[in-house]
């Protein structure tokens, strides 16, 4: 008998371990947060479906804890099976562990870190942004959920105008200008698919400070992205050579040199936005446009103080040299394009004949 008991100890332990593992897997499985497919939503909503559920944070702010089930079903995550615990990783049990955040803002700034788990590339881009850079000093600097929402996340650009209205939550003053502009009004009123929304110029997640030397020097190319696209411009009957002609202009050559050599040195030569405006761009025939003939002199005077009314004609505009638009320039151009070949070919041929004659004369003399 003494010899049989020890032989049974191993299988008993083995069976006990199996039962324990089975119990763990069946009872505690919902606690495994790294599984995207969970069944937590219905379970959580059994409490959080109560519209009156809320709590008071140490700051005195009331934190609503109600989740609208219908609304949640329409979000991008829930139908994919990405449920509560995908983000609320620390809540594994009921009663929940105590909330240690003082304010609602503090809570938001902690919870958005969950986004990184799945959206790591975008999260990293956002870390390089202007918003992330100021976040240390400014708690209002937006985190993922400020733009995208938290529970009821929808596609951020459906409709496209949603992008700009989202930005307007903080950048209201700029938005008010933009909304009136040729770009903004086409977006808001016609849901135009071609006009830029905020993110088309400023970037999406890695939004940079638009006041830097680098942004300024790159900005003409930004505009050219659409305004040098012949197909796109033809839709709106706009010329697509404005950027190429700008590059030949006084301002444009200056800017291209700075771009190539000194992108980090501030320069004052005019870029597109200096004349046309930034968020308040209007069609040139709109009386509100800074480049409308009525306003053009005042716009020039911002950089060229004290210039007279003739000054605006010194700018040939985004136009090729033509008799109708710039007769003087046209005639000077014609004069030189005819004079140069006449003078240089004339002088060249004459000198050539002289050389030939000298050679012939010398040969004759030596052969005489």
């Amino acid at each position: 008998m003494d010899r049989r008991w020890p032989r049974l100890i191993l299988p008993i332990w083995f069976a006990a371990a199996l039962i324990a593992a089975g119990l763990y897997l069946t009872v505690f499985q919902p606690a495994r947060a790294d599984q995207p497919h969970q069944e937590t939503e219905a379970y959580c909503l059994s409490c959080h479906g109560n519209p009156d559920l809320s709590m008071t944070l140490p700051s005195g702010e009331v934190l609503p804890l109600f989740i609208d089930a219908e609304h949640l079903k329409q979000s991008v995550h829930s139908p994919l099976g990405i449920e509560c615990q995908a983000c609320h990783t620390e809540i594994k049990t009921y009663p929940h562990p105590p909330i240690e955040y003082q304010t609602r803002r503090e809570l938001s700034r902690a919870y958005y870190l969950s986004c990184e788990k799945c959206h790591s590339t975008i999260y990293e881009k956002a870390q390089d942004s202007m918003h992330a850079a100021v976040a240390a000093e400014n708690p209002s600097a937006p985190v993922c959920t400020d733009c995208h929402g938290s529970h009821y996340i929808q596609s951020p650009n459906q409709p496209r105008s949603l992008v700009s209205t989202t930005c307007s939550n903080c950048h209201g003053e700029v938005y008010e200008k933009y909304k009136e502009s040729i770009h903004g009004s086409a977006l808001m009123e016609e849901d135009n698919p071609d006009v830029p929304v905020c993110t088309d110029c400023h970037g999406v997640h890695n939004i940079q400070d638009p006041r830097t030397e680098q942004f300024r020097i790159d900005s003409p190319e930004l505009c050219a992205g659409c305004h040098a696209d012949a197909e796109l411009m033809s839709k709106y009957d706009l010329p697509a050579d404005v950027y190429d002609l700008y590059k030949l202009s006084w301002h444009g050559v200056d800017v291209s040199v700075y771009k190539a050599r000194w992108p980090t040195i501030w320069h004052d030569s005019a870029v597109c936005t200096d004349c046309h405006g930034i968020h308040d761009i209007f069609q040139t025939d709109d009386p509100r446009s800074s480049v409308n003939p009525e306003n053009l002199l005042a716009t020039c005077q911002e950089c060229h103080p004290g210039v007279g009314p003739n000054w605006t004609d010194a700018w040939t505009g985004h136009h090729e040299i033509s008799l109708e638009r710039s007769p003087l320039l046209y005639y000077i151009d014609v004069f030189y394009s005819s004079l140069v070949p006449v003078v240089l070919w004339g002088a060249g041929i004459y000198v050539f004949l002289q050389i030939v004659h000298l050679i012939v004369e010398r040969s004759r003399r030596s052969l005489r």
Partner: protein
Amino acid sequence: MSEQPMQTKTDSPPVQTVRVFKRFSLGQRWEHVLLMLSFTVLLLTGLPQRYRDTGWSQQILATPDMVYLVQTIHRIAAVVLILEVIYHLGAGIYQMARRKLSADIFITWQDVRDAGQMVAYLLFLRKDKPTFGKYNFEQKITYWFIFVGIGIMVVTGLILWFPETITWVLPGSVVPASKVAHSTEAIVAAIFIVLWHFFHVHLERLNLSIFTGKMNEEDMKTYHAREYDRLTGEKAGQDGGKQP
């Protein structure tokens, strides 16, 4: 060594008097030096500005300070040239009015005939080279081409220097027009000088009279026979135009 008689030159060469003719005054010679220097500096500092969008220009204009420096040198040289132009016109008009300067530099019908004959000669349609006065038509072309060219460069250059002021008086379109004229005229003038002027004063013959102020009899007879005749009362000869 002392035994040997010293070799002495028994037949000294026949004395040859070389007559030289005054061609340019000291003032004129200095004017040419000033013109030459300012023209060169203006060209060297102007080219990088004209071709700012090219790599070699950006090698020179490597910093915004360099751009400023090159512009400043260009403008200093321009002021020198403008002063020289003012002196040239003032002195020329004054001296001509007092009959101290001949009007030889002005183009006459004779120059048109000379040019026609010269082209015929170069095309072997005519045996004799035409004879010329103090300034042949080639030299007059050089002078007047540069005269008009500098006029254009000074006017357009001042417009480009003070565009904001000048458009109070002149229409705005003079500014881009000046830019085209200034940069094109400069290139044409530079190529013309190298091609035309350098050929005539360095290759066809070495003519340094603008520096020395003088020209010897040989060259006078060969290249400026009519002037030689006028000064000496002699005939440079029917073959005056031919190479000796």
